[in-house]
């Protein structure tokens, strides 16, 4: 059942260009949903609309069947974690975390255990009396998280919370966030431009481009079956070329090579794509079969775990990764085989 619902949200900062263009997004209770997309596509703007920091020009924002579109930010009770952490420099960790509870006029006897609990959960129990500038990046991150969580928010909003941490800590913190989110069962929206981070943490991913959501699916579904060219490119597909439909699951390239796919697609989708890893390389002269395209190596690059070849074919340049046991040299002719189940049409 839908818990959070964004309906035809439109946002324009200058009254001319729409930054969000009739954006729709439905999130279920307890889910962790990521907004994934390149910088400038409107992720932060979407999150700020949800938080109530921006009022949309059009559209409705509903949580738990209540329309909150015009409810001001301070009455929404959502926890938010900013990219810069935004800790209050003049307050200690405890005071930072307790800030929201104090505003709710909570009694000391119920407030202190709550603060203590959340400090335990976020691994800050020892640091309560420190000031933000005495903390490391990871610790600041935890304080920001604790401060957002202690008010028992209806929604947790995180705007690229890990982007200021180094790579190792980032992996550690995302597992931590996932664990806490699961434990508290709190509905969350997580903004990121990092594909791996997003796939590892999310129940569902909304891939955004230019103010709209291109695809909203589970990470597996997005990884295996991107629906648009943009999504495919964004998550690492290469090798885009045109196909003409011949029959059910059968297509031909512009040069007449027959390609089969394992799934059927609607008629309009006529661009094929495949990841460099998913193409098989066969020596020239192998028995011609379907899903084979001949080509000639142009450039070979050593990637460590494999070789990458740029292969000239009559559907254009194709990037292929081949095992490092057999190295083809540039100029060599070979056959590329596109496994049916790996060929995606967008």
């Amino acid at each position, binding site marked *: 059942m839908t818990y959070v619902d964004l309906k035809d949200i439109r946002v324009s900062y200058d009254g001319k260009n729409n930054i969000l263009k009739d954006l729709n997004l439905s999130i279920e209770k307890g889910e962790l949903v990521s907004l994934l997309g390149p910088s400038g596509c409107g992720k932060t703007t979407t999150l700020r609309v949800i938080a109530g920091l921006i009022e949309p020009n059009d559209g409705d924002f509903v949580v738990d069947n209540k329309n909150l579109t015009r409810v001001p*930010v301070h009455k929404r009770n959502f926890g938010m974690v*900013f990219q810069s952490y935004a800790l209050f420099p003049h307050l200690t960790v405890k005071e930072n975390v307790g800030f929201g509870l104090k505003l709710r006029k909570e009694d000391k006897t119920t407030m202190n255990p709550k603060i203590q609990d959340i400090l335990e959960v976020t691994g800050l129990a020892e640091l309560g009396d420190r000031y933000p500038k005495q903390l490391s990046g990871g610790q600041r991150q935890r304080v920001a998280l604790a401060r957002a969580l202690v*008010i028992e928010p209806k929604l947790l909003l995180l705007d690229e919370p890990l982007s200021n941490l180094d790579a190792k800590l980032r992996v550690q913190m995302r597992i931590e966030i996932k664990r806490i989110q699961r434990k508290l069962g709190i509905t969350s929206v997580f903004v990121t431009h990092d594909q791996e981070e997003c796939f590892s943490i999310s129940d569902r991913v909304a891939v955004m481009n230019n103010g709209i959501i291109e695809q909203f699916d589970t990470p597996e579904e997005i990884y295996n079956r991107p629906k648009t060219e943009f999504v495919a490119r964004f998550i690492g597909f290469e090798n885009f070329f045109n196909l003409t439909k011949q029959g059910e699951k059968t297509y031909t390239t512009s040069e007449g090579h027959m390609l089969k796919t394992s799934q059927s697609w609607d008629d309009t989708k006529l661009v094929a794509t495949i990841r460099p890893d998913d193409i098989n390389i066969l020596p020239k002269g192998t028995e011609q079969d379907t899903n084979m395209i001949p080509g000639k190596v142009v450039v070979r690059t050593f990637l460590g775990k494999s070789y990458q070849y740029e292969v000239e074919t009559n559907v254009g340049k194709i990037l292929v990764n081949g095992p490092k046991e057999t190295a083809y040299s540039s100029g060599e002719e070979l056959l590329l085989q596109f496994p049916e189940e790996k060929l995606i049409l967008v």
Partner: protein
Amino acid sequence: MRKQRGLSIISMLVFAFLIIPMIIIVVTSFGENPSIQFPIQGFTFDWYLNVFETNSLIQSFFLSIQISMIATILALLVGIPAAYALARYSVKGRDILKSFFLSPAMIPGVVIGYALFQFIVIQFQMPIFQGLLLGHFLISLPYIIRVVGSSLEQLDFSIEEVAWTLGCTRVRAFVKIVLPNIQAGIFASFMLAFINSFNNIPVSQFLSGPGVTALPTSLMNYIEYNYDPTVSALSVLLMVGTVILMYIIEKTLGLASIS
């Protein structure tokens, strides 16, 4: 190497040029001769006593303190919200507005004094005291807006937004989150504006009347009739006071925060 020596000689000269008049003033304040002389003959503290016995000077001193204090506080009350609005909202005429608020710093004080005298005191019959206050308010405002504005610009506004998400109204977030974090800037701007207002001559010169004369004006009047070291003594006292204030600023925020 040669070049550096040349530079240090120049800076020594500049320093000497700045410091020598002050030394002369300090020295002359102790001279026994009833007219200002350098070098001095004899040594006395009489002129310092005379400062406290000259009614017009003492009266003006307290008037100046009062005027500068009230004007600076009023300027804070207007200037802090104005600086906040200028830093926070990208309103259309922002640059024009900024120049407008800062304009008293660019207009010669004589002009402000004369304009106030002409229109406020003569035309609208406003009492001198209020006129003086208004003038000093005007010359203080730009300092407040500039110094508070620069501390606001260094403040990460997301801490305010976080406070809103935690349940703060805008006013409350301003008081509980913004103000504590620009305290240093507010204090520095207060000190600067206060000292500037206290020392100001051009505005005060036009706005004086019976019993309402700012200290710098009184001092000039005094010199016209008595060329004795009382003036030097008073100057030394003021210098000491200013140095103490500056020391407090330096100790609490560092001088860098005001330049």
